[in-house]
């Protein structure tokens, strides 16, 4: 079947099999490798994407399920101001995520800050469970997200003041 949807801001269409997971479909049909099918059970977080603005594990989404919807992969997310805030916050706090979890953590942090501009450590750790990886001390990650939250708030404040 042909699936039409918005991918990283552009209208796209491609043929999908009913058996396709979204993560596999994005790579096969569009050459995107930001969402990686690794565990294929929603556990590792390497396949995170935004589906209609909500963070989801794309390995648990049927490709046909994005018909008429909007998908943002890490490639698209990395072009946003939110990503820049989070990358800066992580860098300032000394978060040195590994290649396995780096993009997923940024996306999980963005999803959290969208809902909770000033998240608690508990909320941060809950969202970071979307990308479970032991490469970084959880306390440093909490500091990273809190620093990113401050940077983001300042940016939004400046923008609102214009």
């Amino acid at each position, binding site marked *: 079947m042909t699936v039409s949807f918005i991918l990283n801001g552009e209208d796209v269409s491609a043929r999908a099999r*009913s058996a396709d997971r979204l993560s596999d479909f994005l790579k096969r049909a569009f050459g995107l490798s930001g969402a990686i099918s690794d565990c294929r*059970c929603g556990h590792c977080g390497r396949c995170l994407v935004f589906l209609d603005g*909500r963070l*989801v594990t794309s390995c*648990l989404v*049927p490709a046909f399920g994005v018909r008429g919807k909007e998908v943002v992969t890490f490639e698209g997310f990395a072009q946003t101001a939110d990503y820049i805030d989070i990358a800066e916050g992580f860098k300032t706090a000394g978060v040195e995520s590994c290649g396995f979890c780096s993009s997923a953590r940024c996306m999980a942090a963005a999803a959290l800050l969208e809902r909770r501009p000033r998240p608690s450590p508990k909320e941060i750790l*809950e969202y970071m*469970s979307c990308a479970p990886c032991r490469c970084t001390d959880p306390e440093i990650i909490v500091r990273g997200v809190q620093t990113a939250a401050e940077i983001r708030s300042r940016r939004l404040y400046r923008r609102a003041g214009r």
Partner: protein
Amino acid sequence: MRDAEVHFPKDLADALDIMRKRPGIGILAGGTDLFREQGGRGIALPDDVLFVRDLAELRRAGLTERFLEIGAAVTIAELLELGESALPPLLAEAVRGIGTPAIRNLATLGGNLAASGRFMDSWPALACLDGLVELRDQGGATWMNVNRLVGEGGRSAVPEGGLITRIRVPLEKWDIFALRKVGPRNYPTPDTAVFAFAARTDKGILVDFRIAFAGELALRSPAIESSVIGRALPLSARESSTVAESYRAAASFLPEGLSLQFGVLVESALGMLAS
């Protein structure tokens, strides 16, 4: 792998019409359980699939004076967003234990109840709260207690041929309640199970008492519950011990590890009534 024919109904009537024309059609909403279980690259689907996730009728949630009514395709995240004032605390606690935030954005309450082969996190809480599910087919709608989703030997027995459309949760107040999840939190295994307990008291008398426990098998015993209701609080050590023993006997069909954990949780719940 053969390509399934996927149907995208425009509304509930259309969905029911497709179900009538294609008996045995597979119903898919969030898909998290099905996709997680299969693990491989391609997903084996039935020849015909009815994709109900976006049906407006299944995506509404509403509050009346007596009930919270939740569309079967409302996601767990959307359910939590209703807030503490709308969501019974026992149910809130149960659904908070489901997956990660990214999975909760996909998984639906209907899917959590209709998962094949096991009970998921919401069932014990809904069983304690006397939740109802609406099952629709071309013949009309039937409301049934979630306790009727338990079949022989405590196994899951979701009726076939119908579509779960709504879940109704009575908004009664419970004085004492607890919910515990045992086993892996973010993905269910044979060792995963959820224990729910709720009790209501009036002038020192236990006027209602419920315990439900479920993983691959479910246990709720109205007979034991009835034997406790009406007793004066706090329960004596002898009363607690008799009830705990009854539950131990009732749980003998559970795997040994879960049976032992259930026993400990029952004692802990009874301890709340003894203090």
